[in-house]
Each structure stands twice: as C-alpha cells, then as structure tokens.
C-alpha cells in the first residue's frame, strides 16, 4: 500500500504539487490522469525518487521513504520511451539491475528466464531492442521492472508513443499482466480512455491538486466538480450556463438564454440562487424532431456513425453535443427539440463545485 500525505513540491517559488493526499491499495491498478502540466508525471517521479519531496510524507507499506534512494525503495518504473539499452540484448536489459548488484551469472540467467517466460519473451532473449516490435519492447521494459520484485510498479505514459491500434492491444495486455502479476501499479496518462479502461482507481489531477479520486464509474456518474465532469467521458459533458431562481418556497427554476426552462422540487437543500452551470452528458439529452422538449435548438453539425449519431446544436461557436442511438436522418439547419434526462445531469455552482444532482434537490 502506498500513501501520499500532504505532499508538496516547489520549483523555486512555484508550487507545482499543492498538498496531495493519495492512497493506493495493494494489488490496485491506480491511474493518475490529467491534462499536461497538472503535475502527474512530477508526482510519479517523486514516488520513484527521481524528484525530491519538499513537504509531506511518502509511505510505502508503512515505512516513510521520502529520503530513501530510488533503488532502495522497492519501486520499479517503466519509462515513456521504455529506455531499453540499445547496446544490450533483451536478456542483458532484463538482468541489468541484478548484474549491478553482482548477483552470480547463473542466478541472473535463471531469474531472467523466469521473467521471460511470464512475458513470453523466451525466444527473443538474444535479440537487441532494435530488432523487436513495439509490444515486445514494452514487455522487455516490464520485465526489467518485475525482475526486481518491486512492491510497486510505476508506468509513465507507456502507450503514448504507439499508434492507436497498437495502443488498444497494449491496454489489454497490460490488464492481463496486472491480473497475472497481482502487482500494485501506479500509471500516469493524459488519456482519459486509458484511465477509464484500465484503472481500479482513478486519481484526476488538476493544477497540482487532486480534483477527485475514486472508481472510474464513480467519477463518471458522480463527479465532484466541473473539471472532473468534463475531463472524464468522451465526448465530454456539456456545460450550460443557467440561472437558478426560487419562484416559490420549495421550488427551484433553471433557465437559460436558449429557452431552457426546468422546474424542480427544492428538496429542502439549501441551494443558493443565482448563476450556476448545468452539466449534461451527450447521451442524456433526448432528441425529437418537432416534438415537445425542454428546449429547442438548431442543428449545426451532424456526424452519422451508423450505430449512433452525434449532433452539435445551438450556437456554432459553443455547441451542445448530443448523442442519439442509431442512425438519424437529421440535416444541419433542422430545428430539434431536446429533453433533459434530469436523473442523470449535474448542477455546479459558479465555482465549478457540484451542487447535488437535480433529481435529489
């Protein structure tokens, strides 16, 4: 189990990691995700020991390891470029850490053989990295990590150099390996799809702080804030500026400039009236041609994929994206009515923090 407690990092006067608390349980596949510059890689490098920790505690299996050198932490890392030494064979690459420790050659050979078997690299041990495919290189990089029998394996955007087809394949392979090795993994990526598909726990980072941490579906269904709401999910959640008012006691009214007008029961929650934001995922808007709806808008763009259809409606500059099942023969310029699935949408205050979902208001 790894614990980060109020961890901070400064570059000069600039605070890049602003008091982060994260826990990853044994055997968990944790993904740190966030836009570039959010501090996810820095955080990973701090766990690895490649960057110092200015404040706070880093605790691995109950032991504070802030000041333990990288190779003594019991942590292995798979680098973005894999960093396989081109002048060494696969076997030498995997066994490098053991040979540095002056482990006897026969013992290195045995352990490298074991690791190669797990990773299906036995036939490639005498090759140089240049003679391997992308997937094989990744397996060698993982082999170099697991031969150290680490209690934690770190991955730094390992799929970002691969083309999209190979990436999908590698995702599946990483999940299979994680199941087989039962290793604790911290994985950094900027790709929310990678995070959603692989993680047991996602930690969304934004500007050096944890925006939200939890199971992928918790983040998807109940985001704590506008940032997580729009970062997780593709296409991303629509955010509509609305005005909240309370026409009668116990009633709330949502209105916006496009003619959206929804009345809600104010279930006793003390919701402040005024400016707010309504978050609706594309799949939670229902389209009808000419029928009744919560509001209507003009279609700007239509993307027909056969199994589903994406519509961009409203202002061309900042359109609302709608996902509809099946193939709809709607053309740009048509006017459609839209119904909001109130049970699935989210209300955020002007600071982007979630107000409880409208359904439960």
């Amino acid at each position, binding site marked *: 189990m790894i614990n980060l407690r109020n961890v901070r990092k400064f570059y000069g006067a600039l605070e890049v990691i602003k008091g982060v608390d994260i826990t990853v349980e044994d055997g968990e596949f944790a993904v740190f995700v966030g836009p570039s510059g959010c501090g996810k890689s820095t955080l990973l490098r701090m766990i690895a*020991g490649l960057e110092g920790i200015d404040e706070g505690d880093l605790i691995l299996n109950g032991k504070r390891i802030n000041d333990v050198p*990288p190779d003594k932490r019991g942590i292995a890392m798979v680098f973005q*470029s894999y960093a396989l*030494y081109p*002048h060494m064979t696969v076997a030498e690459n995997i066994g*490098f*850490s053991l040979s540095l*420790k002056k482990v006897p050659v026969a013992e290195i050979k045995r352990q490298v053989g074991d690791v190669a078997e797990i990773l299906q690299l036995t036939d490639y041990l005498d090759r140089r*990295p240049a003679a391997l495919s992308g997937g094989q290189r990744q397996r060698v990089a993982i082999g170099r990590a697991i031969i150290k029998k680490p209690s934690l394996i770190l991955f730094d955007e390992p799929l970002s150099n691969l083309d999209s087809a190979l990436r999908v394949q590698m995702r599946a392979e990483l999940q299979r390996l994680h199941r087989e090795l039962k290793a604790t993994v911290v994985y950094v990526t900027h790709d929310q799809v990678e995070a959603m598909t692989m993680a047991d726990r996602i930690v969304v980072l934004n500007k050096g702080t944890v925006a939200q941490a939890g199971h992928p579906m918790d983040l998807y269904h109940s985001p704590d804030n506008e940032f997580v709401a729009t970062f997780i999910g593709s296409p991303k959640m629509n955010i509509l500026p609305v005005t909240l008012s309370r026409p009668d006691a116990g009633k709330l009214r949502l209105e916006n400039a496009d003619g959206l007008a929804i009345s809600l029961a104010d279930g006793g929650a003390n919701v402040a009236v005024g400016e707010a934001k309504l978050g609706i995922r594309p799949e939670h808007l229902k389209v009808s041609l000419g029928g009744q709806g919560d509001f209507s808008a003009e279609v700007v763009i239509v993307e027909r994929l056969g199994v589903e259809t994406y519509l961009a409606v409203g202002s061309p500059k900042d359109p609302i994206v709608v996902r509809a099942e099946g193939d709809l023969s709607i053309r740009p310029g048509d006017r459609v009515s839209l119904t909001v699935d109130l049970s699935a949408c989210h209300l955020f205050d002007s600071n982007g923090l979630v107000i409880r979902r409208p359904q439960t208001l």
Partner: protein
Amino acid sequence: MTDFALDKPGKSRRPDLLAYATLSLISAFCAVPFFWVLLASLDGNAQLFLSWPREWTLNNYVRVFAEEDGARWVFNSLFVVGSATLLVMVLAGLGGYALSRTRAWWKQPFLYAILLIRVLPPTALVVPLYKILLTLNNIEGNLVRIFVGGDTARAIMRWIGFIDGYLGLILVLATMQLPLALWIMKTFFDGLPRDYEEAAVMDGATMLQRIRRVLIPLALPGLAAAGLFAFISAWGDFLLPLILLSSPELQTLPLGLFRAFLRVNTIDYGFLAALAFIYLMPAVIAFGFARRFLVQTFSGGVKG
C-alpha cells in the same frame, strides 16, 4: 538491387543509367589523384606527369624508412594526432554531457564563443599563440631545470614542452578541434533521452556504473564521429607543427613531406609520392572505421 525487378522495364532504366554514369564519373574524378600518387610511388623513375611505370619498385617506400627518418615521422604524427584526438574525445564527451544536461544562462553564449576558435584562421593567431606558448615553455623549462640538469631536462622538455615538445602541439591541436567536437557531443546528448540514465538510477547504478555501462556505450557513435573529425582535421594540420616544432626528431609526416619537397637538388617525385601515400593512409583508414558511426550520429541519434 533486387527491387529493380519491381520497376517497369524501360521506364526507369534510363534515369538509373544516367545516375550511375554521373556517379561513376565523380568517383573517377575523386579516385584519380589517389591512383596517381600510388602509381608514382611504385615507379622507379617517376615524373611530374602521370605515366604508367616502366619499372615497378618498392624502392621509394624503402627509402622513406631506410634513408630518411620515415618511421620516426609516422610515429610522431600518430602519437601527436592520436593523443590530441583522445584528449578531444574525453573532454568533448564530458563537456558535451555537461552542456546538454545543465541549465545555465551562459550556455548559449559559451557555445557560440567557442565556435569562434574554429572560425578564426589559425594563421592569424600564430604570433600571440607562439608568444604565450613560449612564455609558458620558459617558465616550465626553468622549473624542470631546478630538479634535473642539462641533457635530462632537454629530454623531458621534448615530451612536455610547449614549444618544440609533444605536449604543446598536442594541446594546441586538441584546442583547435575541441569546439566542433563539443558541439557534436552536446547535440548528441540532447538527442539521448534522460530516461536511459534514470532507468539506470532506478536499477541502482552508481555514477561510475552509469558512465561506464550506459553512457559510454550509448555515446560511442557520437564520440566516434567527434574523434574522427578531430583526427582527420588534426592529421591534415601543417601550420602548427611547422611553427611549434624545430627538432628533427620531433618532425611529423607533413613536415617531412614539406622538407623533402624543398630540397635544393632535383625533386624526387617517386619519393614524394611514397611519402604522400603513407600520409594518406591513416586518414582513409580512420574514415573507413568511423563511417558507420557517422551515419548513425547524423541521422538522428540512438534508435532502440
């Protein structure tokens, strides 16, 4: 050339033929001087103009080594240029790494400033350079003479003297070659991801292990390219040994060639050609060795 089969016959043959003809012509143009020198060096009665030798002989080569001090010149040249190259490789390796990996405001100005050494014609620097080296040499000589006297001091100064000593020439030659080598190595390390070193750190490698087992093998193509340029350029240098060396036993190959050319009696073309051919060989061999590293270095660093 198996992919010729894939080409449509008749369509691409002609441009290919033209390209090969042009390339052959250029190759011949480049090769003729070498061939000329080789022919003349094997000719018992070589003249200024190219002619097929009437009598084949190795006598010219024998004379270089038997009658003249040829072996000494070859040794001097190889020793001086080799030492300078080694020095350049070590300094450029370490310096290039430092220049690539550190962040300092003076880095760019420094890199452009050292290029100036390369840009200024050495001839223009000869007088101040000689003055400085002479001063250093006198101080050094006086120091040496405190401990040992007369002939021993002279023998020592032959190795470590700044004027008319190996050390001075080695240092000056290395200085001339270092800027370009530093640029090559800095650029090379720029293209080498830090991941390699950090992976080694994670594996528990000490600083020395990182240099020996990771950095040097990775930097070898760059070092070979930098060393090759230094060697070839220093090997071809004529002015600096001419100015800095005067003792006959320190003469290098280009000086030997030059002096043989200046002899008062008739010019011995066979002898000159043999000497020239010997002078050519190390540069050609060095190029042959380093060619594959050159391609690797200038086509974008390490692939792995």
